[in-house]
């Protein structure tokens, strides 16, 4: 638990500085400290409670009792999300398309740079599929390939995708890519191929196995992953206490990915 103490110290150091970013940091760290306290108790007392909350038995169908989500504190991403992008590439094997040009390259997650015109303030944030509750990509798909799983993860069922790319047009976050070339040597847990659309699948193979998504593991101090429907989960508590921003909240898509610091 030395990490916990470090965070305490940081919080104290930053306390006098004022400013928006510091207050964000303070809130986030306070919540992390608070939560890790709770987590420790939960782990010690009934044994494996925390594990069980995450994993489902392999032969059980997913239900809508759970809704998976991410909370990304961009002020804690010193690299603006580079590590997350790299982790995602490695996990799913994209980003190495030999014949595609820049416009055609796959992008499951990318770093977006936002500059405020008046102040010149630059913000970098990683953007992946936002796993919308009312997903436009699912609405427009003519074959039902673009789908939302009961637990809120939005996926492309590549078996029935005809590659029309209507969902790419519909997605307000530019989250989807189309594979333009024949691929070989895919990762066994992440099938991907020419002629179909793909996007961040919230590392569904890991989630089903009770693990966290690869990008979360690459930036554990900045990203929380958990069940938005479970009031007791770390992510729900953090969101309840401090809120979280949706990108383009005006669209009313009730995204599963929320941000701090934008």
């Amino acid at each position, binding site marked *: 638990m030395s990490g916990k103490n470090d965070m305490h110290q940081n919080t104290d150091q930053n306390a006098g500085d004022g400013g928006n970013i510091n207050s964000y940091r303070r809130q986030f760290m306070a919540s992390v400290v608070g939560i890790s306290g709770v987590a420790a108790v939960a782990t010690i007392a009934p044994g494996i409670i925390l594990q069980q909350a995450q994993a*489902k038995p*392999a*032969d*059980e*169908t*997913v239900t809508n009792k759970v809704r998976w989500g991410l909370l990304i504190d961009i002020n804690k991403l010193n690299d603006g999300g580079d590590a997350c992008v790299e982790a995602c590439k490695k996990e799913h094997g994209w980003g190495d398309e030999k014949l595609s040009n820049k416009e055609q390259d796959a992008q499951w997650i990318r770093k977006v740079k936002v500059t405020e015109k008046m102040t010149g303030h630059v913000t970098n944030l990683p953007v992946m599929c936002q796993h919308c509750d009312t997903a436009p990509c699912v609405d427009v798909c003519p074959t039902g390939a673009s*789908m939302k*799983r009961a*637990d809120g993860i939005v*996926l492309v*069922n*590549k*078996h029935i995708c005809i590659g029309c790319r209507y969902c790419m047009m519909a997605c307000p976050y530019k989250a989807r890519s189309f594979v333009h070339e*024949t*691929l*070989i*040597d*895919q*990762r*066994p*847990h992440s*099938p*991907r*191929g*020419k*002629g*179909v659309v793909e996007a961040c699948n919230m590392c*569904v*193979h890991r*989630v*089903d*196995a009770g693990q966290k998504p690869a990008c979360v593991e690459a930036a554990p101090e900045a990203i929380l992953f958990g069940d938005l429907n479970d009031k007791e989960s770390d992510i729900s508590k953090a969101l309840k206490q401090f809120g979280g921003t949706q990108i383009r909240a005006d669209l009313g898509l009730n995204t599963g990915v929320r941000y701090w610091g934008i």
Partner: protein
Amino acid sequence: MFSKFLSVTSSLLLLVFLVGVSGCGNESPQIESKITKALKKFDTEEQNTAHKAEMRKYHMDHLKHKRDLTMYGGIRTAEDSLKGCIDCHVPAPEGDKVVRHTDPEHFCTTCHAYASVQIDCFQCHADHPDKPESATATANNASMDKNLGIVADDSTSKTSTEVTAQ
């Protein structure tokens, strides 16, 4: 009209199917001998025979059924997992030697080429196991295999030896 079309199509299908099955059955030792041996083996000979008989005829039905369970329900058991088939029937890459579905010695290709049936699975799915060092889920598979009565065969496989050790 339509039913006639159906019956013609289905008898054609049946024909292709029978050719396919007999092509890879005991009747055809030339093909049998070319098929790559599986890495793991069953506890008993009966299990082995039953597995062969079932899979030779119905592997595509098993895979298609499981595909929907996995896509929509997130069910990722070892049973009928395509990744499981590949892990056992196709050797992991060793150095530069990678067996892909475009190679005649690939387990699936041996029969599919003989029966002239195109395989679409590997347009997207991996046609061989990950390189040993990047295979993270192997331990998981091993524990699931136990439930299916599959044990690692140490004499034929380096990969599965590692699995049992974990």
